[in-house]
């Protein structure tokens, strides 16, 4: 037997951020008949009702790896981080005990748990990393009734199905190489630390190396690596497989906290474990590597998860059931996204007209192709719940593919290029699609496919072939079946994957139909291509405009009108940027490259003179656009729509109701407003009026910055500013691989935190005042940005001092005493302090004290909408400037 390394002294422990009193040695009578001396970091007994977190490290680390757990939970819970025998400051093992195999390691853990009497009167939560995970799982399957919960970080129990062991681990099959890398030199330790890069500190690196400075201190490191069952037969292979098969018996909550950059225990291992536990949650840390608990705020996620775990336990012991998890209310089960197609399965009228590619398809053919594509997907091996990344450009093929995926039971992952390349990569990587459907492997597609290395690519033209005879299909997916993953625009942090069930999509379709009185007689033009997906679900003929999908802002009046005439459209949906260009090209046709020389002089215009703005310039040419003139409904959403643009649209489409729905990727529609209400509301409130909640949607304004874990707060008084909560049957199910984000967005009772702040006025109209993360926490209280921005724009834009949509109100300084700074975009001005005239003008119209008025050459906005101001970036810029 070899001695353990000398224990650090008190100052060293403190220098590492470890309370020296946590460190202690425990003599444990072992199943092998000997007494082993273990080293543990133990924060000491905790109160009844709290938890005991037993933390099991992997290889080549030690209990220090759990520092964030010890410091964060040590005061309220008991945290015991152990050093495995032969590791850290535990006793080194003599030759007779080496190598110590998996089965013995599990028995060792059992010995220690028995000796320490862990989890006898408090809830036992196992936290484990790397090889420690396999050991902890080994103990857990034997004591499933004693496990209150498990946190597993970058670990695994077996090689995930359909792949081989990671290359780097396969090198360890060579015993001499293993000895060289793991024992005789610190290469393995250094390599592990290097993977974490600058995400771990110099102190961390020093501490991780400390117990492994000499060869004999590193024996166990090599033994652990040698215990990975890479050779056949291997003494630990069967025990591991047995444990893997029994994981299903652990019904306690399991949290997987995963560093996605890990090249050994990668996302596949997370997916493998997720499929084995019945009650599992996943939090993916896209920027973290193997030492995820050290690199990322895993403890923060565990904190939330632990709160739920303990409150569920206490309510269970009180005989209460958790309403939310027991009976999740579902959307209506009577409708489905296929209703629209079902009604028209033998209809030979146009279903889709794609003006960009000059193609049309009728409903009967469309339905047949959808079913053929679904059959082909099943034939290729797609099973229920498989994620399919849709990389096909908008058009008939994409629509057939999406409905085909749905019909086959797959989940459509819709990641558009509006996320930017980086956002698209993160989006594809985080959803881990099993399939991709798109053009043949070339150009951008080849690029994207690298981010989903284990997906199988299907060439869309092979999928959308002529249907051959009758097809065999599984039953249509039910309302609870997962259907789609969409992405937030990423205007406030990285884009999040939002997932919907079929019932929620159907409910959304129904909400749109009810809000806009859509019937089978309607015909839709989707100038915003993704909106075309609603066409087949609604069962209405749909036209796509001739405009590049990546630049909707280049849509011309001519192109929109052409699409309207093509199908005799009654409704059109266009993004605000597209509408602005439609208006511009209608009023100044010379800008429109596709338009012939405009004829002037016809006075038989049917445009009503009621529109106050833009009317005089558009009346003359309004008649030219017969398709636009015939519309009964124009919809625009996605970003704030300037009223001036809507008035100009009203002049082009005088018979149309001009509406803009309010909502978010997670919930749409929430509210709806028409032009008339915009006009009456504009001047008399704070923020942007988005109308009244649509039928079936509920809105509640609650106190700013409330704690989600405390449940749903009561509504604030009418007119008071707060965060906007939304509830509707069509609210999305959650976020992909972001459990904490999802949990913190869902305070309970099916409410969703929109992240927007605003108020409801006495007339029941909803006003949006900004994003909650952009609220300025001034000494006098919260200041919301949008009312200030709108006031400045409304009062100063007419004087030419500011440009609408390009004013930002941000805070500088520490939260609680932030100072208000107004930033105005002037592309050609000098960036920095505004001149006296502008500063005085802004101060004169803003009620709150303005510390400074700044001029920026370019206010940063999001890619997708080119409209959502990145106030966080502006605040950082302003803070630096004013320091």
């Amino acid at each position, binding site marked *: 037997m070899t001695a353990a390394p000398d224990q650090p002294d008190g100052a060293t422990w403190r220098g590492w951020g470890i309370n020296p009193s946590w460190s202690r040695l425990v003599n444990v009578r072992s199943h092998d008949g000997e007494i082993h001396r273990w080293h543990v970091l133990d924060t000491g007994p905790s109160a009844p009702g709290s938890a005991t977190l037993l933390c099991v490290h992997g290889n080549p680390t030690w209990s220090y790896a759990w520092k964030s757990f010890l410091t964060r939970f040590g005061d309220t819970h008991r945290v015991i981080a152990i050093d495995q025998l032969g590791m850290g400051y535990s006793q080194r093992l003599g030759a007779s005990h080496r190598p110590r195999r998996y089965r013995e390691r599990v028995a060792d853990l059992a010995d220690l748990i028995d000796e320490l009497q862990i989890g006898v009167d408090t809830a036992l939560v196992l936290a484990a990393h790397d090889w420690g995970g396999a050991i902890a799982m080994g103990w857990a399957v034997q004591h499933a009734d004693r496990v209150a919960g498990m946190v597993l970080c970058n670990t695994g129990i077996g090689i995930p199905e359909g792949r081989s062991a990671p290359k780097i681990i396969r090198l360890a099959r060579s015993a001499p190489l293993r000895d060289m890398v793991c024992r005789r030199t610190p290469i393995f330790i250094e390599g592990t630390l290097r993977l974490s890069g600058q995400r771990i500190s110099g102190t961390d690196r020093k501490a991780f190396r400390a117990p492994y400075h000499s060869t004999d201190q590193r024996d166990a490191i090599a033994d652990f690596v040698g215990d990975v069952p890479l050779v056949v037969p291997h003494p630990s292979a069967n025990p591991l497989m047995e444990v893997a098969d029994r994981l299903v018996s652990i019904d306690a909550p399991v949290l997987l906290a995963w560093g996605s950059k890990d090249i050994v225990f990668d996302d596949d291992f997370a997916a493998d474990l997720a499929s084995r536990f019945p009650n599992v949650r996943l939090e993916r840390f896209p920027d973290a590597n193997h030492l995820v608990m050290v690199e990322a705020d895993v403890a923060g996620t565990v904190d939330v998860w632990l709160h739920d775990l303990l409150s569920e336990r206490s309510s269970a012991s009180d005989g209460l059931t958790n309403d939310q998890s027991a009976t999740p209310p579902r959307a209506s089960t009577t409708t489905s996204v296929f209703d629209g197609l079902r009604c028209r399965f033998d209809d030979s009228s146009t279903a889709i007209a794609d003006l960009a590619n000059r193609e049309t398809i009728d409903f009967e053919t469309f339905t047949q192709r959808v079913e053929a594509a679904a059959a082909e997907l099943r034939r290729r091996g797609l099973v229920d719940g498989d994620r399919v990344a849709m990389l096909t450009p908008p058009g008939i093929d994409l629509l057939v593919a999406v409905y085909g995926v749905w019909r086959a039971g797959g989940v459509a992952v819709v990641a558009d290029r509006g996320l930017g390349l980086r956002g698209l990569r993160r989006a594809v990587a985080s959803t881990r699609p099993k399939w991709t459907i798109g053009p043949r492997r070339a150009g951008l597609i080849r690029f994207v496919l690298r981010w989903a290395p284990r997906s199988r690519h299907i060439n869309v033209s092979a999928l959308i072939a002529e249907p051959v005879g009758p097809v065999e299909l599984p039953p249509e997916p039910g309302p609870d079946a997962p259907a789609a993953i969409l992405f937030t625009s990423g205007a406030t942090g990285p884009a999040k994957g939002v997932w919907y069930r079929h019932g929620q999509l159907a409910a959304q379709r129904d909400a749109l139909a009810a809000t806009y009185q859509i019937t089978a007689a309607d015909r839709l033009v989707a100038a915003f291509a993704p909106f075309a997906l609603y066409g087949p679900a609604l069962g209405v003929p749909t036209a796509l405009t001739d405009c590049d999908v990546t630049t909707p802002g280049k849509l011309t009046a001519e192109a929109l009108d052409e699409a309207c005439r093509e199908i005799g459209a009654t409704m059109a949906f266009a993004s605000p940027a597209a509408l602005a260009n439609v208006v511009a090209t209608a009023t100044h046709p010379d800008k429109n490259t596709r338009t012939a020389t405009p004829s002037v002089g016809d006075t038989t215009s049917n445009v009503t003179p009621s529109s106050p703005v833009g009317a005089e310039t558009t009346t003359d040419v309004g008649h030219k656009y017969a398709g636009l003139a015939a519309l009964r409904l124009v919809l625009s959403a996605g970003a704030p729509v300037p009223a001036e643009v809507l008035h100009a649209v009203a002049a082009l489409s005088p018979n149309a109701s001009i509406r803009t729905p309010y909502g978010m990727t997670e919930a749409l529609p929430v509210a709806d407003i028409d032009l008339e209400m915009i006009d009456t509301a504009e001047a008399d409130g704070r923020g942007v009026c988005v109308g009244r909640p649509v039928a079936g949607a509920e809105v509640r304004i609650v106190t700013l910055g409330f704690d989600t874990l405390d449940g749903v707060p009561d509504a604030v008084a009418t007119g008071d500013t707060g965060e906007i909560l939304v509830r509707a049957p069509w609210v999305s199910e959650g976020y992909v691989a972001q459990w904490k984000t999802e949990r913190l967005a869902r305070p309970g009772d099916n409410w969703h935190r929109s992240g927007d702040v605003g108020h409801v006025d006495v007339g029941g109209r909803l006003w949006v005042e900004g994003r909650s993360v952009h609220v300025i926490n001034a000494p006098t209280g919260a200041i919301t940005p949008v009312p200030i921005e709108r006031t400045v724009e409304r009062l100063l834009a007419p004087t030419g001092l500011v440009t609408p949509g390009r004013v930002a109100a941000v805070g500088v*300084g*520490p939260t*609680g005493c932030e100072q208000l700074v107004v930033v105005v975009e002037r592309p050609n001005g000098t960036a920095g*302090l505004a001149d006296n005239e502008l*500063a005085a003008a802004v101060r004169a119209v803003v009620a709150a004290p303005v510390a*400074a008025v700044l001029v920026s050459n370019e206010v940063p906005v999001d890619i997708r909408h080119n409209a959502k101001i990145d106030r966080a970036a502006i605040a950082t810029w302003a803070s630096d400037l004013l320091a």
Partner: protein
Amino acid sequence: MAYTTTAATGNGTTRVAITGASSLIGRSLATLLVARGDRVVAFQRGEFSTDPVDADVTAQVEQHRGDVRDRAALDAALAGCDVVVHLAAKVGVAGHRDEYVAVNVDGTRNVLAAAKRNGLRGVVHVSSPSVAHDGQSIVGGAADPPVAYHGTAWYPETKAIAERDALAASDGVCAVVAVRPHLVWGPGDVQLVGRIVERAEAGRLALVGGGRALVDTTYIDNAVTALTAAVDAVGPGKACAGKAYVVSNGEPRPIRELVEAFCRAADVPFEPRNLPLSVALRIGSIIDRIWSRLDRSDEPPLTRFIAEQLGTAHWFDQRAVRHDLDWQPTVSIDQGLKTLTDWFTASRTDIPSR
């Protein structure tokens, strides 16, 4: 200075001594205290005031001539007082360290000792935000502890020692609160507005780093009401006992805007030269060395300390002081600027132009 009696909160029985009472803040404070019915002992080396507008107040205050270096004179002045507001200090950027030490350090110790000997309930020690100045920008900061080293800037160094002594002297019988008004300005102020206007008129106005840094300032009336609030609040066991607070309007503005506003108020041209911060710091350091080597006692055109003050943000979290002293500023910067403009206009018309 006109104060309405509605602002008065004194109960008429407080006897307040003011050292350095002949300064602008001292006279304004005396005026307010008298107006609300307090008895005021004015302690200064010369006349309390020779200005006719102060005639009423001068008649009502009890004048004690003396120097804070003179213990006997202090005892005579503080006898029977409840609170002393210690304003007397040697300010400036030039001169010998000994002079600063004698007035600012020893003088403060004398005032503290006299306060204890005479059984006062509290001392309001008027300090300076520069005592915590370490060359870094302060963004929504707290009143950090004084730092000892300030290079050759004797004023902040000696004021730092004095504040540390003062707060350390706070005990269960006689409490001490340190108040650091941040850049006080207003009509009649020669320290800040006066110098800026003088330089602007001479065409020697310069801004460091474009004057972008956000700084706190204090309109004179607010500095005075804050000191009055401190007089009322200070006492053994009170929240403010033994603590330091930065006092300001709580409306930080870029330096450039303030300087421009002062120039507009005084109707002098605003044509500043711009000195990049790094250049200003280098020049300041050089001048510091020259002035100390040549032993000059006149005011240097720039010092490193002033360059740092002008080139970095200095603004403070005002929540604690407003809570602990139960005080709010009553005059906003914009209102103050209007008063300043009126004052300049009036002083121009007072002077016969022929």
